[in-house]
């Protein structure tokens, strides 16, 4: 099945085994990447992708197995060993110091001094310029990292790796915080690097990206290598099957004809000096998709409705009555719930238990004279956990230890528990693996069928067209287009989101 691109292997990992107490993270995994290759490494959360790459980068030591680099057997004990071999590891959470300039960040670990032992910023800036030229981007090396967006920060990380003469680049979910345009630009750069001989390992959850850019793909499942395939010969359904171990039945999510009862009425809303003249209605049982680039005001719209950002002008009506929301507490009381994009920092209190997290907004309900009635609370949480099929060893499990999909379900359980009428979902499937994504969609469907209304934001327009009844497109803080389900067309919606008139 495998077709060689004619290049020798840059990295070969042989029969790598790594156990953590109680779990085998990797079992005899062999993995190889050729020079001048973009190799995608995929698998659900917990499959062992990151562990494998951390072993390659020397952050984790394998229990067994060998690593060959450019044909020579090597022992990588620490990250500096792998850096010397030319491995650059770009973590999902970037390792930049925001308060320092770009050039300082790039050369932090290997500052260049002149003959007098004085830091040679001139030379370092020149080198940084050269690196950015090589990447084909224009960024001033003197700018502070804090002034950059996520996409540019990523480029700084790449430049940093290249400054260490990296010939082997590992990128852990580099696209998770980027907009479509930014992703496309990143892809051009990655391809340019490949053509210059660099081997790139590309970890992602997005199947489309694999087909867009990767030459080969390796699939891990539960710590075992399931297969290595040439992308050109692979079908999406095959890949999904490899990842989750069974074929995914993807019923076309069909929405029944719904009565048009207006639930939410947003009229000429201005907020956060970003949203301008937003007017739209949300109907009962409706799933309203919101498309738009990063920075188009998507998140701000949900924040304004949920009472996090103060409204400057305009009005919101719910069930025909004008409402004033000044805090999330007000919103929740009115039956509005928000599942924020940043689950870890905004959606949950990760160090506390699942039960406590779910009942925050309605724990008062379980109050008796003696205090919180833990039995009653447990009953309710048990019901919600079952209803949303949250997988957890116990109800007192710390949320931190749950998988991404289950964390999202905990957030949803919280709102389901307080009989929420309007769900605001900001990128509900981000960072969630394929199987869990489908479950989240199913839940959203169920919630709508049960009478709730849902506003959902997603950068993945294809996903949005599957789940929504109607899609509103935001552009630069205003509503730029609206699509009914029968007119859904991924390309048109995307163009609209980029500000092109239809």
């Amino acid at each position, binding site marked *: 099945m495998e077709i060689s691109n004619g290049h020798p292997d840059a990295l070969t990992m042989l029969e790598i085994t790594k156990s953590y107490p*109680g779990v085998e993270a990797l079992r005899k995994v062999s993995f190889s990447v050729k020079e001048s290759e973009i190799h995608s490494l995929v698998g659900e959360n917990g499959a062992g992708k*990151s562990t494998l790459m951390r072993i390659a980068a020397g952050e984790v030591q394998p229990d067994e197995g060998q690593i060959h680099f450019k044909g020579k057997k090597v022992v990588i004990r620490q990250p500096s060993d792998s850096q010397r071999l030319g491995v650059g590891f770009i973590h999902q959470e970037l390792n930049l110091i925001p308060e320092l300039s770009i050039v300082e960040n790039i050369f932090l670990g290997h500052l260049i001094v002149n003959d007098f032992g004085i830091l040679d910023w001139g030379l370092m800036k020149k080198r940084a310029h050269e690196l950015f030229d090589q990447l084909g981007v224009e960024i001033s090396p003197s700018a502070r990292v804090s002034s950059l967006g996520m996409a540019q920060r990523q480029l700084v990380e790449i430049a940093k790796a290249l400054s260490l003469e990296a010939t082997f680049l590992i990128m852990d979910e580099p696209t998770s915080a980027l907009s479509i345009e930014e992703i496309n630009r990143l892809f051009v750069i990655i391809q340019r690097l490949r053509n210059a001989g660099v081997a790139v390992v590309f970890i992602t959850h997005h199947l489309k990206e694999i087909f867009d850019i990767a030459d080969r793909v390796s699939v891990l499942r539960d710590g075992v290598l399931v297969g290595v395939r040439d992308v050109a010969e692979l079908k999406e359904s095959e890949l999904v099957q490899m990842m989750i171990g069974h074929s995914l039945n993807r019923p076309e999510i069909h929405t029944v004809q719904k009565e048009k009862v207006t639930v939410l009425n947003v009229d000429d809303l201005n907020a956060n000096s970003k949203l301008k003249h937003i007017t739209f209605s949300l109907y009962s049982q409706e799933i309203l998709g919101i498309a738009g680039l990063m920075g188009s005001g998507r998140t701000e719209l949900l924040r304004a409705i949920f009472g*996090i950002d103060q409204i400057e002008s305009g009005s919101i009506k719910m069930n025909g009555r004008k409402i004033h929301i000044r*805090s999330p507490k007000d919103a929740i009381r009115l039956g509005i719930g928000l599942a924020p994009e940043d689950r870890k*920092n905004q959606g949950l*209190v990760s160090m506390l238990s699942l039960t406590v997290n779910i009942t925050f907004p309605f724990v008062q309900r379980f109050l008796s004279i003696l205090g*919180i009635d833990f039995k009653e609370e447990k009953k309710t949480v048990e019901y919600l956990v079952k209803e949303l099929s949250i997988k957890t060893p*116990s109800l007192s*499990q710390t949320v*931190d230890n749950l998988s991404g999909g289950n964390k999202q379900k905990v957030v949803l359980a919280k709102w389901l528990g307080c009989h929420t009428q309007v769900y605001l979902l900001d990128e509900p499937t981000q960072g969630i693996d394929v199987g869990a994504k489908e479950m989240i969609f199913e839940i959203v469907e169920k919630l709508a069928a049960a009478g709730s209304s849902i506003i959902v934001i997603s950068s993945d327009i294809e996903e949005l067209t599957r789940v929504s009844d109607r899609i509103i497109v935001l552009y630069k803080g205003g509503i730029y287009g609206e699509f009914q389900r029968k007119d859904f067309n991924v390309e048109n919606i995307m163009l609209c989101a980029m500000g092109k008139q239809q």
Partner: protein
Amino acid sequence: MRESSERAVVVLFEKYSSVGILIVISAIAGLVSPLFLTEKNLLNVFRATSMLGITSVGMTLVILTGGIDLSVGSVIAISGTFAAFLWKSYNNTALIFVVPLAAGAIIGLLNCLLITELRLPPFIATLASLSAVRGIALVITSGQTIYVDYPESFMLLSQGYLLGLPIAALLFIFITIAASLILRFRPIGRFIYAIGGNEVGSFFSGIDVRKVKAFVYIACALLASFSGLILTARMGICDPGQAGLGFELDAIAAVLIGGTSINGGKGSLVGSFVGAMIIGILNNMFNLLNVAPEIQYVSKGVVIILAVWVQSINLTAILRKKGGKSTSPGQLTTRREVAER
């Protein structure tokens, strides 16, 4: 079976290592001074520690939310000052209970407003009130120490006994239990932990963060002013320049020795109770042995380091290394997530 017993050991260690330290220090105290383990002395320690203990209860609540209250020492001073000043001027028993406590509550509210409305970091807000509040106390007495003859009912606070125990000690126990029950059984208890764990996440979950903060800062200052009453009753004087000086540091130390995280979200009042007792016993031991105050300070520093260090030991990892790779299913997911990160 081995696994569950291993887990039990870990839980015991995590929860009660401060109790172990308390026992060790008591044993040492008993060995070096024959006077230590007498009933009279132990009751005395208990009574002397009650002020620190009561203050630490409030401090624990504040630290659990991820905050800090540096003003408690000054609140102790101003509370005693009001009591002494009012008794001298009006001879009214009700007044000397009510006014100092009300003053404490108001200071707590002001601290909270500085933090929630002006958005000052708790450290800065309460550092300012540490200075300002003691200044006001000094202004009230023109910097003089007030000598007072308190009424008998007020003196009960420091000298009274009930059921063979000092009333101050009983109050300490009672307040600790009451606050523990609030933490465990009332929604606000949960919200206190939640805010310390993740303030933004708590706000997004509909928790009224301001209200919870108001509760903890008012409770903290109120309990400190109550300690101030016990102190002035005990001394029969009020010296606004010296009363409660540096007390905030002892209270914070007691909370930390008790295992509460300085970052908030984790900890218990039982821990702080034990932490306060450890400091109390140390003080008592050194007094019995006539150790110079300088040495007392040094050893207190050492104990803080020891206690917090012992609690940071990851016993799970150590047991694993020795005993192989057994885990309970509960930890399995943990490890798996770690592996994925």
